Protein backbone atom coordinates (compact mmCIF):
# COMPACT_ATOMS: atom_id res chain seq x y z
CA UNK A 1 0.00 0.00 0.00
CA UNK A 2 1.58 3.29 -1.04
CA UNK A 3 1.50 6.40 1.15
CA UNK A 4 -1.22 8.10 -0.93
CA UNK A 5 -3.53 5.11 -0.62
CA UNK A 6 -2.75 4.84 3.09
CA UNK A 7 -3.72 8.50 3.55
CA UNK A 8 -6.91 7.93 1.55
CA UNK A 9 -7.77 4.90 3.66
CA UNK A 10 -7.16 6.72 6.94
CA UNK A 11 -9.19 9.74 5.81
CA UNK A 12 -12.05 7.47 4.72
CA UNK A 13 -12.12 5.70 8.08
CA UNK A 14 -11.84 8.94 10.03
CA UNK A 15 -14.74 10.43 8.10
CA UNK A 16 -16.86 7.27 8.61
CA UNK A 17 -16.36 7.56 12.38
CA UNK A 18 -17.02 11.28 12.31
CA UNK A 19 -20.31 11.23 10.38
CA UNK A 20 -21.55 7.81 11.49
CA UNK A 21 -21.95 6.37 8.00
CA UNK A 22 -19.88 5.51 4.96
CA UNK A 23 -18.69 8.64 3.19
CA UNK A 24 -19.28 8.97 -0.53
CA UNK A 25 -16.47 9.34 -3.04
CA UNK A 26 -17.60 12.94 -3.59
CA UNK A 27 -17.29 13.71 0.12
CA UNK A 28 -13.80 12.24 0.30
CA UNK A 29 -12.84 14.07 -2.88
CA UNK A 30 -13.92 17.36 -1.29
CA UNK A 31 -12.07 16.58 1.93
CA UNK A 32 -8.84 15.44 0.30
CA UNK A 33 -8.41 17.66 -2.72
CA UNK A 34 -8.49 14.65 -5.03
CA UNK A 35 -11.01 14.35 -7.81
CA UNK A 36 -13.76 11.79 -7.50
CA UNK A 37 -12.23 9.41 -10.06
CA UNK A 38 -8.97 9.37 -8.09
CA UNK A 39 -10.86 8.50 -4.92
CA UNK A 40 -12.74 5.70 -6.69
CA UNK A 41 -9.50 4.31 -8.15
CA UNK A 42 -7.81 4.48 -4.75
CA UNK A 43 -10.73 2.71 -3.11
CA UNK A 44 -10.44 -0.04 -5.75
CA UNK A 45 -6.81 -0.57 -4.82
CA UNK A 46 -7.68 -0.59 -1.11
CA UNK A 47 -10.44 -3.11 -1.82
CA UNK A 48 -7.90 -5.33 -3.62
CA UNK A 49 -5.66 -5.13 -0.56
CA UNK A 50 -8.53 -5.93 1.84
CA UNK A 51 -8.25 -2.52 3.51
CA UNK A 52 -11.96 -1.89 2.85
CA UNK A 53 -14.73 -3.60 0.90
CA UNK A 54 -16.62 -2.00 -1.98
CA UNK A 55 -20.12 -2.71 -3.20
CA UNK A 56 -19.53 -4.18 -6.67
CA UNK A 57 -22.77 -2.68 -7.97
CA UNK A 58 -22.13 0.92 -6.92
CA UNK A 59 -18.41 1.23 -6.22
CA UNK A 60 -19.35 2.72 -2.84
CA UNK A 61 -18.13 1.45 0.49
CA UNK A 62 -19.79 -1.73 1.75
CA UNK A 63 -17.51 -2.37 4.72
CA UNK A 64 -14.88 -0.34 6.46
CA UNK A 65 -14.21 -3.18 8.85
CA UNK A 66 -15.38 -3.44 11.55
CA UNK A 67 -18.06 -0.95 10.42
CA UNK A 68 -20.77 -1.90 7.95
CA UNK A 69 -22.19 0.67 5.57
CA UNK A 70 -25.45 -1.24 5.28
CA UNK A 71 -27.91 -2.48 7.91
CA UNK A 72 -27.05 -5.86 9.42
CA UNK A 73 -28.35 -7.97 12.33
CA UNK A 74 -25.46 -6.66 14.48
CA UNK A 75 -26.11 -3.23 15.98
CA UNK A 76 -23.83 -1.40 18.35
CA UNK A 77 -24.48 1.69 20.41
CA UNK A 78 -21.23 3.44 21.24
CA UNK A 79 -19.89 6.99 21.34
CA UNK A 80 -23.45 8.34 21.30
CA UNK A 81 -24.49 6.66 18.04
CA UNK A 82 -25.87 3.46 16.59
CA UNK A 83 -23.59 1.58 14.20
CA UNK A 84 -23.93 -1.55 12.14
CA UNK A 85 -21.23 -4.25 12.37
CA UNK A 86 -20.51 -6.90 9.76
CA UNK A 87 -20.61 -9.78 12.24
CA UNK A 88 -20.39 -10.55 15.95
CA UNK A 89 -16.60 -10.18 15.94
CA UNK A 90 -16.91 -6.77 14.30
CA UNK A 91 -19.58 -5.70 16.81
CA UNK A 92 -16.95 -5.93 19.55
CA UNK A 93 -14.52 -4.42 17.07
CA UNK A 94 -16.57 -1.23 16.86
CA UNK A 95 -16.21 -0.71 20.62
CA UNK A 96 -12.51 -1.49 20.19
CA UNK A 97 -11.96 0.89 17.27
CA UNK A 98 -13.81 3.72 19.00
CA UNK A 99 -12.17 2.94 22.37
CA UNK A 100 -15.60 3.14 23.96
CA UNK A 101 -17.86 0.98 26.06
CA UNK A 102 -20.99 -0.04 24.19
CA UNK A 103 -24.19 -2.02 23.88
CA UNK A 104 -24.40 -4.77 21.26
CA UNK A 105 -27.69 -6.03 19.91
CA UNK A 106 -27.85 -9.31 17.99
CA UNK A 107 -29.85 -12.51 18.15
CA UNK A 108 -29.07 -16.20 18.56
CA UNK A 109 -29.27 -17.71 15.04
CA UNK A 110 -30.65 -20.94 16.51
CA UNK A 111 -33.58 -19.69 18.59
CA UNK A 112 -33.83 -16.04 17.48
CA UNK A 113 -33.68 -14.92 21.11
CA UNK A 114 -32.47 -11.31 21.23
CA UNK A 115 -29.02 -10.89 22.72
CA UNK A 116 -28.12 -7.67 24.49
CA UNK A 117 -24.49 -7.46 25.46
CA UNK A 118 -22.93 -4.63 27.44
CA UNK A 119 -19.25 -4.10 26.82
CA UNK A 120 -17.48 -2.30 29.63
CA UNK A 121 -13.71 -1.92 29.91
CA UNK A 122 -13.39 -4.33 26.94
CA UNK A 123 -15.35 -7.07 28.72
CA UNK A 124 -18.81 -8.43 27.91
CA UNK A 125 -21.13 -8.48 30.91
CA UNK A 126 -22.44 -11.98 30.12
CA UNK A 127 -19.56 -14.46 29.74
CA UNK A 128 -21.86 -17.41 29.03
CA UNK A 129 -22.40 -16.61 25.33
CA UNK A 130 -20.47 -18.51 22.67
CA UNK A 131 -19.07 -17.31 19.35
CA UNK A 132 -19.00 -19.64 16.36
CA UNK A 133 -16.89 -19.08 13.28
CA UNK A 134 -17.88 -21.37 10.42
CA UNK A 135 -15.20 -20.42 7.88
CA UNK A 136 -11.52 -21.24 8.52
CA UNK A 137 -9.13 -18.27 8.69
CA UNK A 138 -7.37 -19.01 5.42
CA UNK A 139 -10.71 -18.63 3.59
CA UNK A 140 -12.17 -15.55 5.31
CA UNK A 141 -11.50 -13.35 2.28
CA UNK A 142 -12.84 -15.82 -0.30
CA UNK A 143 -16.25 -14.27 0.31
CA UNK A 144 -15.95 -11.69 3.05
CA UNK A 145 -19.65 -10.82 3.05
CA UNK A 146 -20.54 -14.48 3.75
CA UNK A 147 -17.74 -14.81 6.31
Amino acid at each position, binding site marked *: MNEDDLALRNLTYARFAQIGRAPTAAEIADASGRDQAEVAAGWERLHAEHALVLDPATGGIRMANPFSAVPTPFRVHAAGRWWYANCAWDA*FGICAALHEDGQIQASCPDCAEPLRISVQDELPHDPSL*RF*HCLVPAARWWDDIVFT
Partner: protein
Amino acid sequence: MHLFRSGEHIQRWLAGREPGATIPVTTLSELAHAWWGDRLSPDWRPHTQDHNQAILNRLGLTGAFWRLSHDRGSLPPEYRG
Protein backbone atom coordinates in the same frame (compact mmCIF):
# COMPACT_ATOMS: atom_id res chain seq x y z
CA MET B 1 -19.58 -15.25 12.57
CA HIS B 2 -22.40 -15.36 15.08
CA LEU B 3 -23.08 -15.25 18.79
CA PHE B 4 -25.12 -18.03 20.36
CA ARG B 5 -26.72 -18.51 23.74
CA SER B 6 -24.73 -21.71 24.33
CA GLY B 7 -22.86 -24.58 22.70
CA GLU B 8 -26.13 -26.51 22.56
CA HIS B 9 -27.65 -23.80 20.39
CA ILE B 10 -24.63 -23.98 18.06
CA GLN B 11 -25.02 -27.74 17.63
CA ARG B 12 -28.71 -27.38 16.85
CA TRP B 13 -28.05 -24.56 14.37
CA LEU B 14 -25.36 -26.57 12.59
CA ALA B 15 -27.91 -29.35 11.99
CA GLY B 16 -25.22 -31.85 11.05
CA ARG B 17 -23.02 -29.43 9.08
CA GLU B 18 -19.29 -29.51 9.67
CA PRO B 19 -18.61 -27.23 12.65
CA GLY B 20 -16.08 -24.41 12.51
CA ALA B 21 -14.59 -23.10 15.74
CA THR B 22 -16.34 -22.06 18.95
CA ILE B 23 -14.85 -19.70 21.51
CA PRO B 24 -16.19 -17.95 24.63
CA VAL B 25 -17.49 -14.44 24.12
CA THR B 26 -14.84 -13.17 26.52
CA THR B 27 -12.13 -14.46 24.16
CA LEU B 28 -13.98 -12.90 21.23
CA SER B 29 -13.93 -9.52 22.95
CA GLU B 30 -10.20 -9.82 23.64
CA LEU B 31 -9.64 -10.81 20.04
CA ALA B 32 -11.69 -7.90 18.70
CA HIS B 33 -9.87 -5.37 20.85
CA ALA B 34 -6.46 -6.66 19.77
CA TRP B 35 -7.48 -6.93 16.11
CA TRP B 36 -9.49 -3.73 15.61
CA GLY B 37 -8.20 -1.41 18.35
CA ASP B 38 -5.98 0.61 16.00
CA ARG B 39 -8.39 0.92 13.05
CA LEU B 40 -9.15 4.57 13.62
CA SER B 41 -5.64 5.57 14.57
CA PRO B 42 -4.38 8.38 12.32
CA ASP B 43 -1.12 6.43 12.15
CA TRP B 44 -2.76 3.15 11.16
CA ARG B 45 -0.79 0.84 8.92
CA PRO B 46 -1.84 -2.57 7.65
CA HIS B 47 -1.19 -5.45 10.00
CA THR B 48 1.14 -8.05 8.62
CA GLN B 49 -0.08 -11.61 8.50
CA ASP B 50 2.50 -12.49 11.15
CA HIS B 51 1.13 -9.74 13.41
CA ASN B 52 -2.42 -11.03 13.10
CA GLN B 53 -1.34 -14.63 13.54
CA ALA B 54 0.45 -13.61 16.74
CA ILE B 55 -2.80 -12.10 18.05
CA LEU B 56 -4.59 -15.39 17.41
CA ASN B 57 -1.79 -17.41 18.94
CA ARG B 58 -1.67 -15.28 22.07
CA LEU B 59 -5.34 -16.05 22.66
CA GLY B 60 -4.81 -19.76 22.15
CA LEU B 61 -6.47 -19.73 18.73
CA THR B 62 -4.05 -22.12 17.11
CA GLY B 63 -4.23 -25.07 14.73
CA ALA B 64 -5.16 -25.34 11.08
CA PHE B 65 -8.55 -23.63 11.47
CA TRP B 66 -6.96 -20.41 12.69
CA ARG B 67 -4.03 -20.39 10.27
CA LEU B 68 -4.10 -17.29 8.08
CA SER B 69 -1.72 -18.79 5.55
CA HIS B 70 -2.50 -18.21 1.91
CA ASP B 71 -0.40 -21.28 1.16
CA ARG B 72 -3.38 -23.55 1.04
CA GLY B 73 -1.27 -26.55 0.18
CA SER B 74 -0.12 -26.49 3.79
CA LEU B 75 -3.68 -26.77 5.10
CA PRO B 76 -5.79 -29.88 5.63
CA PRO B 77 -7.93 -30.59 2.54
CA GLU B 78 -11.16 -29.48 4.23
CA TYR B 79 -9.75 -25.96 4.75
CA ARG B 80 -8.36 -25.38 1.26
CA GLY B 81 -11.63 -24.39 -0.38
